[in-house]
């Protein structure tokens, strides 16, 4: 069978299956399970109407269950076994994790990332959004700042590998040091601060995202409230911090938490730049170092990451819902 025909057939079966499912299940509900006749007709109609939403929701819930809920439960189950997956060891993987120095470093670094990156990206995004608002070339500046969003994390890491290069002919930091007569060094090997050099890459990428969303939010503020504040005697800083920022607080929180979730998942930057060496590991890259070697351990890390993301996620969704109202 030719691929085109195969594709078409798949579409027909898929779409037809959906239509068929809704049609058939509806008929079965109305005619067979709760028929709208006989002495119980009224009660049956009410019951059928109560069941119907679940009927329609079932396919989506089933798919979500299969591809989201099952993996979560499955991962947790797997994390209770040893590296080969045949010996049940209870919570040993977790206990070993917390006993390990490297894991604690990864958690600490991750904490730094979670604190610094969303704060910096949101702050810079807000700053750029505000400063470019009235500029003639503001849109041009914004497109430049937004551009890193279109680059993959690995690509961005490669770019910054050049920036941070230890060779003064390539890396800008060492080129500056060189011109000042200082010795070349590898920024990625400077303990503790190398974390921040890595974080800056993500800030560089995410500032564009924060800027776009916050710029739209700033534009949505009613102009009159700003004019009223000006008449009330507020200076530009007071207008910004006391009138504008409080009015877009909801959006700021959504941007902040969205970036936070992203930070908890990011792994490519660390993996490409340092491979987790020089004490720069964060949880996802730490997890990668166990993958395919000790899946029990790796899934345990994955589960820890999920537990960390969960509260932020819930908050994020709540805020986003509030915004939509």
């Amino acid at each position, binding site marked *: 069978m030719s691929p085109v025909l195969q594709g078409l057939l798949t579409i027909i079966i898929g779409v037809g299956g959906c239509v068929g499912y809704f049609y058939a299940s509806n008929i079965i509900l109305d005619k067979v399970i709760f028929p709208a006749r006989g002495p119980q007709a009224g009660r049956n109609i009410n019951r059928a109407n109560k069941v119907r939403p679940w009927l329609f929701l079932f396919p989506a819930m089933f798919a979500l269950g299969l591809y989201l809920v099952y993996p979560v439960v499955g991962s947790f189950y797997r994390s209770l076994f040893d590296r080969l997956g045949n010996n049940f060891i209870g919570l040993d993987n977790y206990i070993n994790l917390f006993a390990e120095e490297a894991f604690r470093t990864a958690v600490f670094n991750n904490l730094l990332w979670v604190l610094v990156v969303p704060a910096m990206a949101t702050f810079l995004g807000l700053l750029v959004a505000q400063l470019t608002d009235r500029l003639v070339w503001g849109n041009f500046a914004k497109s430049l700042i937004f551009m890193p969003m279109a680059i993959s994390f690995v690509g961005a890491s490669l770019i910054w590998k050049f920036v941070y290069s230890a060779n003064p002919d390539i890396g800008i930091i060492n080129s500056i040091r060189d011109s000042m007569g200082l010795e070349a060094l590898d920024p990625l090997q400077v303990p503790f601060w190398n974390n921040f050099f890595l974080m800056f890459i993500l800030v560089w990428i995410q500032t564009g995202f924060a800027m776009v969303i916050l710029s739209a939010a700033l534009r949505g503020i009613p102009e*009159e*409230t700003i*004019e009223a504040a*000006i*008449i*009330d*005697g507020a200076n530009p800083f*007071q207008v910004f911090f006391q*009138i504008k920022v409080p*009015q877009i607080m909801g959006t700021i929180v959504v941007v902040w938490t969205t970036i936070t979730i992203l930070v908890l998942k990011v792994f490519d930057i660390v993996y490409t730049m340092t491979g987790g060496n020089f004490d720069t590991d964060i949880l996802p890259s730490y997890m990668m170092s166990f993958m395919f070697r000790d899946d029990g351990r790796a899934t345990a890390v994955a589960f820890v990451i999920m537990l960390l993301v969960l509260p932020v996620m819930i908050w994020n969704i709540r805020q986003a819902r509030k915004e939509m109202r």
Partner: protein
Amino acid sequence: MADLKLSDVEKAYGEVKVLSDVNLDIKQGELVVFVGPSGCGKSTLLRMIAGLEKITGGTLEIDGMVVNDIPPAQRGIAMVFQSYALYPHMTVRDNMAFALKIAKKSKSEIDEAVNRAAEILQLGPYLDRLPKALSGGQRQRVAIGRSIVRDPKVYLFDEPLSNLDAALRVATRIEIAKLKESMPNSTMVYVTHDQVEAMTLASRIVVLAGGGIAQVGTPLELYERPNGEFVAQFIGSPAMNLLSGEVVETGAQTRVKLDGGGVATANIPTTDADMGLKVNLGARPEDLIASDDDDYLYQGEVDLIEALGELTVLYFKPDAPGADPVLAKLAGTHAELRGKTVKLKADPARLHLFHNKVSLLYR
């Protein structure tokens, strides 16, 4: 509490002049209303007084001081916006206190000013609510309260009632009138497109049109002695009828032969030189009377009737399709007149004459 003086004020956006030659003296204690059709620049003029728009020519004085380049906050003005412009994240109390907090007034001073304003506007029970928990009328009162606490020299109102529904608009209009009465020394400038608001609130009305001032005067002056066809038709509802004709008798009274066949006498003095002058006769719908007299002013077939109970508005069939119909407002109900031919006349004292759109009284 101050005088306001505009001299040759002008507003241009690049090459385009939207306002020019605006000369106006506003005395302390006056409530001056700017009216005019959409786009006439009335809001722009108000925003120029506020300092939100740059004045591109001429000078603006508040209390004898030129304030062209003085920022809004230091002009001693307060403004009430059409959309209320309340700070949505602040309670009613904080909204009213904001300006005073910015000015670094003491806590007791702020509390006193806010409580006084809340009392005047009956906002006491709502002080700790957010604006979103208030009705439209309450929000507008908060906006007014925000101005009162600042105790400004000049109050500026930018169509403050347009966002309210009809019943609330009347109630809030009366409140503003009372507020003005309770502060007889405060100067207020009020922009509206609603002529009922203008007529009822204003001590003087400024009619703006075509990028400048058309006429300034008390509400009744504008109603009784409009200086041109524009003001004549803008003030009063339904608008004044204009009937073209030519002068056939001059003197203390002027007799006009109308193109529609009627004749009219108006108590407007003319000279022999005006003989044969092409004029438009202005007759307000409420001044027209149905009559069987041969000396009628207008005769036509009643096309449509609006019965309002206390009075009836007659719409006459226009002479030419598309032309403005003549309207007459008669006391009582006259449903039987529909489709009939009716003759109209008017009191000579109530008629207006215009030549080249300018009133003969103001030549």
